[in-house]
């Protein structure tokens, strides 16, 4: 769910799902506690290791509060978000924003530079005209017109005033392709401040882990198979990856798409063409920071398997690429940590 999913419709925070005690009998008396909530139009799941249920619940509650706080700032759809304020002032004036919003836009620009614009948060106007629910192809004239409004180089940051300025009228930034990874990072910071030594912050598929599990083992994350053999969650795993302090995000062409005349139109748009990028089925990036994993999974998807793999290597971060024919490749750094389930 890492793609340019428009996850920020409205901060929902609907419900407390489950509090599960997942393991027991460890030397320090620590167990895993896990809770899920609907937030940002997706499932947010927080897992913490603790010897106290009360402490675990309090930490998890703080994590959900932080999720909601950041989602409110970064939402594309909310009338009151800072992103909406920036977009409304495009071509008019710079907007002073919070440290977090500024920080995230700055990081997004870093990913844009490194990917040569394959990742670009100024695809907002393009995303607006693609309707993946109804499967209606936008007219090419509209795609070309909106494509001209993209261009990360026309975002001006003032690091002293902490302001963001979109230089041309009609420009819009959409942080949906990077925000969940960033929020996962921030949630982990909050958990650590409460004294939690190990846990997982999962904004749907954008996941950040820290510390070791109570049994000393690494966290084990399943990567979805982009073309599951059966409509069954158990048979839906392409690979299992195990690590301690890392984040993982996956961008896939199966998250939001429609098929028309035999062509799959999905939500990961190439900012240069305005159309869905064709080279991959899915890209997972594993990095120390969630914001890096989440930003680069989209950019590498757009670059395609060859350029994408060489970028991963030059950046020194790990990744798994499933190309458009289904071939799976991964970086050397994952050897010994990855188990491929299906090819």
């Amino acid at each position, binding site marked *: 769910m890492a793609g340019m999913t428009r996850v920020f419709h409205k901060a929902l925070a609907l*419900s*407390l*799902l489950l509090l*599960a005690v997942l393991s027991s009998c460890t030397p320090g008396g620590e167990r895993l506690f896990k809770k899920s909530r609907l937030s940002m139009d997706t499932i947010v*799941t927080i897992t913490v290791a603790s010897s106290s249920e009360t402490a675990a619940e309090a930490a998890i509650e703080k994590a959900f509060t932080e999720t909601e706080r950041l989602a409110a700032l970064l939402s594309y759809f909310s009338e009151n978000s800072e992103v909406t304020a920036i977009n409304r002032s495009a071509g008019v004036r710079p907007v002073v924003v919070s440290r977090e919003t500024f920080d995230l836009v700055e990081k997004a620009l870093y990913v844009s530079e490194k990917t040569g614009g394959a990742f670009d948060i100024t695809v907002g106007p393009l995303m607006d005209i693609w309707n993946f*629910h109804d499967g209606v192809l936008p007219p090419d004239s509209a795609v070309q017109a909106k494509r001209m409004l993209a261009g990360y180089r026309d975002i001006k940051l003032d690091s002293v005033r902490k302001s963001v300025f979109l230089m041309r009228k009609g420009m819009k930034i959409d942080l949906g392709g990077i925000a969940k990874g960033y929020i996962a990072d921030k949630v982990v910071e909050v958990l650590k401040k409460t004294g939690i030594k190990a846990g997982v912050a999962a904004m749907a598929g954008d996941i950040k*882990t820290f510390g070791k599990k109570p049994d000393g083992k690494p966290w084990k*994350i399943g990567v*979805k198979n982009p073309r599951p053999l059966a409509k069954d*969650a158990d048979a839906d795993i392409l690979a299992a990856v195990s690590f301690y302090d890392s984040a993982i995000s996956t961008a896939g062409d199966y998250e939001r798409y429609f098929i028309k005349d035999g062509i799959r139109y999905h939500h990961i748009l190439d900012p240069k063409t305005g159309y869905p990028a064709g080279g991959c089925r899915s890209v997972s990036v594993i990095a120390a920071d969630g914001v890096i994993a989440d930003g680069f999974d989209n950019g590498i998807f757009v670059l395609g398997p060859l350029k994408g793999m060489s970028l991963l290597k030059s950046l020194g971060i790990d990744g798994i690429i499933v190309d458009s024919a289904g071939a799976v490749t991964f970086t050397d750094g994952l050897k010994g940590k990855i188990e491929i389930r299906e090819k």
Partner: protein
Amino acid sequence: MPRGSEVRIEVSGALRYTFPLSLDRTVAVDGPLGSTLIEIRDGKVRVKESPCHNRICMHQGWIRSGAVVCLPNRVIVTVSGPGGKGEFDGISG
């Protein structure tokens, strides 16, 4: 299926039903958009019918673990067992 796996059905944050995954049945719950039909059969569960626009919940098909979520109708169906939901600490993708 893991022994004791159960299906939890929540609407708008409130727990409506808890059923064993081993017991075949179909149940309807009312959300803000209307009635969502949930079917449990042969150790699997799915959203059979939904009043929502996008039908993502229905397209997800049968699950044996994890969750099916219908955001528009505020319905969450989760499968959990006493030992947790399996070998993974998270699913990316």
